[in-house]
C-alpha cells in the first residue's frame, strides 16, 4: 500500500547490450516485462532501421501463417491453443520454422491446387452433362421448322451458293444473372441470324471454388454462317460462358461423361484425404510457431529502437525502469548474456524528461486506480488520490444509495463474483458489459457494504424502517399526559408528539434515524434538513482534505513557497467561509434543544447576514459576539484572495530576478575574458527543486504575463469553485432523496397493494407470487441498476471534479513495459 501513495521512482536506465547477446537479453526482458524502451531512432523512418530485414522476415512468415490459418479454418477445423511456455526462439531457429512452414504451405498449396483443378474439371463435366441432358433437342426440332419458315422467302432470292450452309450450334452455360444481357446482346449483334434457347438448370451444381450450390443457365444457339459464329464466340467469351461441343451422337457422349466424372470423383476423394493429413500437421505446428514468431518480431521491433555504439560492439538502449526493479533487471541481463562471455550492463543516467508514472496495483486496488486513471494519469510522483478513493468513493456512493436491502443485494452479487473470480469461465467471458462489472467487483463489494451501513443510518430496508432498538419516542406518555379521549382520537387522524412533554422524548435513538419518523407526516422535512446539512458537511470536509493533500505535493516537489502562498490562503478561504458554516450547523445541533426550538436562530439568515455585514433583529445570535467573529472571518477570507492571486507570481519573479543578478555580477570579468554573451550562462544556479533539471529550464524562460495569467485563472477557479463545489455536494442529498422516494413509491404501489388484496390466506398467497415477481424485477432494474448507475456517476463526478481539482493535475503518462504478455494471447 505504501507504493499507492505516490508513483514509484522510475529511473532512466542505459543498457549496453553486446551485439551477440542483445537478442537473448531483450527476449528475456520481454518475458519479465520490466522496462519500457525509449525510441532512440525516432528520426529514422521505419525501413531504414537496423533490424528491418529480420522484421520483414517475421512478417513474411506471418503471411504464410495467415495462409495456413485460413486454410485450416476453411476446412472447418480449429487451431488448438498453444501449450506451455514458449520463449522467443533463438534467431537460428527462425530458419527452421521458416523451412517447415514453407514446406507445409507449399504442400498445402499443391494439394489445394490439385483439388481445385480436379473440382473445376468435375464441374465442367457435370455442366457438360447437364447441358446435354437439358433437352434442348425437342425445342430444337421446333425451331428448325420455325427457322425454315422464316428462312424460305429469304433464301429464295439469293439462291444457290447459300444452300450448302449448315446450321451450326453453340451450346454452353452461363451464370443466371448474365443470361438476359447475353441474350439481348446476341440478338442485337447478330440481328436475328440465330436462334437461342435459354433454360435454367434444375439441379444446382457445386461451385468449384467456394463449394456453394450455384444454378446455371444453359443455352443452345443455332446459327448460320461463319461470320456470325465468330461473333457469337466472341460474345460468349466476353460473358465468360462455358462452351461445349454439341454433336449429334448424344447418348454415347453422355455415357462417356458419366464414366469420366466417376473416375474424377475417386481421384478427388484421394486428394481430399491427403489434404486432411496435411491440415492435421498444420494444426500441430502452427499455434506454437505463431506465438514464437510474434515474440521474435516484438524483440526485433524493440531492438530497432536501440542505437549502435560507436565501436559497433554493442547496442545501446535507453529504458525506463522502476528503481525497485533495477536489481532484477541487472540479474536478468547478467543471466542472459552469460553464454556470450561479455555481459550486458545497465546503469542509471540522469534524465531531463518527466519519467512515466508507475503505480503497482493488485486486484483489489486496480479498479480504484482505474477510476483515477480514467480522469488522467498522475504526474510523476504526484500524490495519488486512489488510496483515499478506496474509502471515499464507496462512501459517497452509499450516501446516495443508502438502503440496507439494496446494499445487501449489491454486496451479495459482488461477493459471488469475488468468490468465483478464480474460475476460468469468469475470465473467459467475452460479454463487454459483464467484463465491466467483473472488473469492478471489489468496488461493487465495498459500495454494497457501505450502502448497508448508510441504510442503517437512514433506517431503511426496501424503504421500510426497522426498529432494532426501542424508539426514543413514547406515544403512550403523550396520550396519558395530554388526556386524549377516545372521541378526540376518533376525530383526529393526525396527532402531534410534543418532545417538551416529559416522558414523550426519552433520548436519541442509539443508531441512525428513529423508526418512528417513518410514520410521521413531517418525515420528509425532517430528513431533508438532516441530509442537506450532512451533504454540506461531507462536502466541505472532502474538499478541505483535497486541499491538505496538496501540501504533500508541494513538500515533495520542494515548492515550499506554495505552502504559504497557496495552500494556506486556500484553506483559510475555504474553512473561513464554508468551514464556519459547518461549525454553525454542528453548533446548532448541539446547543439548541427541543425546549428552545421555538426561538431557534436560522443559520441561513445568519450566513447571509455574515456576507452583508448586517444583522436582523428577529434572528437571535447563536453565541455572544457572533457578529464580530463573522466580520473577522469574512475580512480574513477576502484578504486571502489577493495573496492567492499575487503571491506565487511575485515570489517567482523575485527569485528569478535575484538569481539573474547574482551570476551576472560574478561573471562580469570572466565574460570579458571569454567573450561569451552573458545570456548563455545566466540561467544556471543552484536549485532546491527536487523535480530535476526540468524546473531549471522553466525558470530560465519565466514569462511574467503567463505566470500571472495562470495564477489568476487558478485563483478565480478556486474561489468560485468553493461556492459552486459546495453547492455541488448537495447532489448527495438530492440523489439519496430520490432513491428513498423511488423505493417508497415502489413499495406503496406494488407490494402494499398486493399485501392488502385478499383476506383469505389462499388468495393472498396466489396473488402475491406475481406481485412479488414484479416488485423484485423492478427493484433490481430500477433501484439497483438504474439508480446505482446514476449514483455511481455522481460519485465519480464528485471525485473527479470537486475533490481532485484541489490538488491533482493528472498530466502524466503510464509506464508501459515491453512485455510478451500481449503476444501470448
Amino acid at each position, binding site marked *: 500500500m505504501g507504493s499507492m501513495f505516490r508513483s514509484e521512482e522510475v529511473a532512466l536506465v542505459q543498457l549496453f547490450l553486446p551485439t551477440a547477446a542483445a537478442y537473448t537479453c531483450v527476449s528475456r526482458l520481454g518475458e519479465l516485462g520490466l522496462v519500457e524502451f525509449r525510441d532512440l531512432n525516432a528520426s529514422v*523512418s521505419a525501413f531504414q532501421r537496423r533490424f*528491418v530485414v529480420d522484421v*520483414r522476415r517475421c512478417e513474411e512468415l506471418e503471411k504464410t501463417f495467415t495462409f495456413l490459418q485460413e486454410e485450416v479454418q476453411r476446412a472447418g477445423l480449429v487451431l488448438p491453443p498453444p501449450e506451455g511456455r514458449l520463449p522467443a526462439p533463438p534467431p537460428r531457429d527462425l530458419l527452421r520454422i521458416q523451412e517447415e512452414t514453407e514446406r507445409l504451405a507449399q504442400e498445402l498449396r499443391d494439394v489445394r491446387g490439385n483439388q481445385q483443378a480436379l473440382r473445376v474439371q468435375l464441374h465442367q463435366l457435370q455442366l457438360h452433362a447437364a447441358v446435354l441432358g437439358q433437352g434442348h433437342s425437342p425445342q430444337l426440332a421446333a425451331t428448325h421448322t420455325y427457322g425454315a419458315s422464316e428462312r424460305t422467302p429469304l433464301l429464295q432470292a439469293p439462291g444457290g451458293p447459300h444452300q450448302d450452309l449448315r446450321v451450326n450450334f453453340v451450346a454452353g452455360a452461363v451464370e443466371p444473372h448474365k443470361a438476359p444481357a447475353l441474350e439481348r446482346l446476341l440478338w*442485337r*449483334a447478330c440481328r436475328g441470324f440465330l436462334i437461342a434457347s435459354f433454360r435454367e438448370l434444375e439441379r444446382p451444381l457445386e461451385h468449384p471454388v467456394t463449394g456453394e450450390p450455384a444454378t446455371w443457365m444453359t443455352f443452345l444457339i443455332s446459327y448460320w454462317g461463319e461470320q456470325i459464329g465468330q*461473333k457469337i464466340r*466472341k*460474345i460468349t*467469351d*466476353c460473358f465468360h460462358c462455358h462452351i461445349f461441343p454439341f454433336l449429334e451422337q448424344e447418348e454415347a457422349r453422355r455415357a462417356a461423361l458419366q464414366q469420366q466424372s466417376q473416375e474424377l470423383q475417386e481421384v478427388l476423394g484421394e486428394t481430399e484425404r491427403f489434404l486432411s493429413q496435411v491440415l492435421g500437421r498444420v494444426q500441430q505446428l502452427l499455434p506454437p510457431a505463431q506465438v514464437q514468431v510474434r515474440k521474435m518480431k516484438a524483440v526485433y521491433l524493440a531492438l530497432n529502437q536501440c542505437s549502435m555504439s560507436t565501436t559497433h560492439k554493442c547496442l545501446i538502449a535507453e529504458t525506463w525502469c522502476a528503481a525497485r526493479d533495477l536489481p532484477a533487471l541487472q540479474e536478468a541481463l547478467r543471466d542472459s548474456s552469460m553464454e556470450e562471455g561479455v555481459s550486458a550492463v545497465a546503469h542509471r543516467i540522469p534524465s531531463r524528461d518527466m519519467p512515466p508514472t508507475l503505480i503497482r496495483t493488485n486486484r483489489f486496488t486496480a479498479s480504484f486506480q482505474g477510476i483515477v486513471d480514467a480522469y488522467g494519469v498522475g504526474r510523476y510522483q504526484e500524490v495519488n488520490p486512489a488510496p483515499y478513493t478506496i474509502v471515499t468513493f464507496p462512501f459517497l456512493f452509499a450516501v446516495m444509495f443508502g438502503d440496507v436491502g439494496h446494499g445487501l443485494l449489491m454486496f451479495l452479487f459482488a461477493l459471488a463474483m469475488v468468490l468465483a473470480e478464480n474460475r476460468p469461465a469468469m475470465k473467459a467471458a467475452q460479454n463487454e458489459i459483464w467484463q465491466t462489472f467483473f472488473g469492478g467487483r471489489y468496488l461493487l463489494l465495498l459500495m454494497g457494504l457501505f450502502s448497508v451501513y448508510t441504510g442503517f443510518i437512514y433506517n431503511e430496508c426496501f424503504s421500510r424502517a426497522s426498529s432494532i432498538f426501542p424508539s426514543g419516542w413514547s406515544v403512550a406518555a403523550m396520550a396519558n399526559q395530554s388526556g386524549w379521549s377516545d372521541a378526540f382520537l376518533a376525530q383526529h387522524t393526525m396527532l402531534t408528539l410534543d418532545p417538551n412533554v416529559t416522558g414523550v422524548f426519552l433520548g436519541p435513538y442509539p443508531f441512525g434515524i428513529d423508526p418512528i419518523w417513518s410514520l410521521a407526516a413531517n418525515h420528509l422535512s425532517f430528513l431533508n434538513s438532516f441530509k442537506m446539512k450532512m451533504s454540506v458537511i461531507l462536502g466541505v470536509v472532502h474538499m478541505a482534505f483535497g486541499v491538505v493533500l496538496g501540501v504533500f505535493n508541494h513538500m515533495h516537489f520542494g515548492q515550499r513557497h506554495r505552502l504559504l502562498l497557496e495552500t494556506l490562503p486556500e484553506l483559510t478561504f475555504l474553512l473561513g467561509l464554508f468551514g464556519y458554516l459547518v461549525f454553525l450547523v454542528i453548533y446548532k445541533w448541539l446547543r439548541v434543544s427541543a425546549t428552545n426550538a421555538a426561538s431557534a436562530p436560522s443559520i441561513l439568515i445568519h450566513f447571509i447576514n455574515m456576507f452583508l455585514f448586517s444583522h436582523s433583529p428577529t434572528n437571535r445570535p447563536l453565541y455572544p459576539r457572533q457578529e464580530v467573529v463573522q466580520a473577522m472571518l469574512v475580512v480574513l477570507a477576502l484578504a486571502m484572495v489577493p495573496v492567492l492571486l499575487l503571491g506565487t507570481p511575485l515570489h517567482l519573479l523575485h527569485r528569478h530576478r535575484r538569481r539573474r543578478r547574482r551570476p551576472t555580477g560574478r561573471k562580469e570579468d570572466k565574460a570579458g575574458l571569454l567573450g561569451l554573451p552573458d545570456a548563455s550562462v545566466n540561467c544556471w544556479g543552484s536549485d532546491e527543486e527536487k523535480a530535476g533539471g526540468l524546473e531549471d529550464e522553466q525558470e530560465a524562460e519565466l514569462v511574467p504575463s503567463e505566470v500571472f495569467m495562470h495564477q489568476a485563472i487558478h485563483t478565480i477557479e478556486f474561489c468560485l469553485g468553493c461556492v459552486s463545489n459546495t453547492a455541488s455536494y448537495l447532489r448527495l442529498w438530492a440523489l439519496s432523496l430520490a432513491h428513498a422516494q423511488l423505493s417508497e413509491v415502489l413499495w406503496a404501489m406494488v407490494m402494499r397493494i398486493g399485501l392488502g388484496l385478499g383476506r383469505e390466506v389462499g388468495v393472498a398467497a396466489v396473488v402475491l407470487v406475481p406481485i412479488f415477481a414484479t416488485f423484485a424485477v423492478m427493484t433490481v432494474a430500477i433501484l439497483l441498476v438504474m439508480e446505482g448507475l446514476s449514483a455511481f456517476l455522481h460519485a465519480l463526478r464528485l471525485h473527479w471534479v470537486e475533490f481532485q481539482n484541489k490538488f491533482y493535475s493528472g498530466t502524466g503518462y503510464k509506464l508501459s513495459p515491453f512485455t510478451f504478455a500481449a503476444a501470448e494471447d
Partner: protein
Amino acid sequence: MLEGAELYFNVDHGYLEGLVRGCKASLLTQQDYINLVQCETLEDLKIHLQTTDYGNFLANQTNPLTVSKIDTEMRKRLCGEFEYFRNHSLEPLSTFLTYMTCSYMIDNVILLMNGALQKKSVKEILVKCHPLGRFTEMEAVNIAETPSDLFNAILVETPLAPFFQDCMSENALDELNIELLRNKLYKSYLETFYKFCKNHGDVTAEVMCPILEFEADRRAFIITLNSFGTELSKEDRETLYPAFGKLYPEGLRLLAQAEDFDQMKTIADHYEVYKPLFEAIGGNGGKTLEDVFYEREVQMNVLAFNRQFHYGVFYAYVKLKEQEMRNIVWIAECISQRHRTKINSYIPIL
C-alpha cells in the same frame, strides 16, 4: 431541387458524406510523401505504405513487387470504396455517381477498340482497363466495326448511350476516328454532366460547375495542343470542344484558329484563371502544361471539401485519390527505374 436542401440533405446522404470526408482525411500527408521519396526499393515503399491508411493492402502480393501490382491494388481499393458509396447511395446521388463512372467507361471502350485495332488479345487489354469503368458488355466491344454498330449492339443499354447521339457514323474505326469518337463522347458526356449539375442547383451546382468548366477548358486546351501538326481540320477541331466553360464561346473560337503553342498562350492570357497557369509552365522544376492543370485541379477539389451538403465531395475525393495514386505510381516508377532526379515532381495534395 427545393430550397433549403441542407435541411434534409443528411437524411439521404449524410452517412455517405461523413464517410467520404473520413476517406479524404486518410489521404497521404506531406510527411508521408517526404518519407516515400526517401525509399530505396519498392519493398521500402510497401513498408511505408503499411503505416498509412493503405494498411497491408499489398500483403498478399507474391514477390517480386512491381509498380503495376501496386497500381492495380490501389485501383482495386479505390474501386471498393466507390462501390460501397454507390451501393449505399440514393437518388439523385446515385445518378451523380453513375455520371462519374462514365468517363472511365469511355476510356475503357476506347482502349479496347484500340486494342482490337492492333489485334491484341482482349485479356491483355482488360488488365489495363480502369476498374471503375468496368461493365459487362465491355469485352464485346471489338466485334463492332463502325460507331453505329458499337452503339446499336453494345452500348445501347449502358449509361454511355445518350452520349452517342452526336457521333453516329458509318466510318470505319481507324485510329483517327477512334480518337475523334473519344473526344466527341467526352464532349457530350461533359455537357450532359454539366447540365445535370446545373439543374440540380444548390451547393452541388456551385461546387461542381466550376470544376467541370475547368475540366472542359482543360480538354479544349489539350485537344488544341494535340492537334497541332495533324491532319485534323480547324472546323473539326472546333466540334470537339465541350460547349461550356470559361472559354466558351469566344475563347473556343479563338482556340480553333490557333496554330501553335504561343498563340494558345496569348488566348489563355485573356483569362485571369489561365494566365498564371500558363506562366507557371517550365518554371521551377520544368513543369508541363499537364502538371499545372493537375495542380489546379487538386486545388479545386480540395476546396470542394470546404462546403457541406453537396455531391461534389464524392467527385473531388475520387479525383484526389486518383492524383494520389498517380503520385505513388510516379514515385514507385522513379524508385524502380533508379531515376531519382525527378522523384520530387509529384503533384502535392494540399
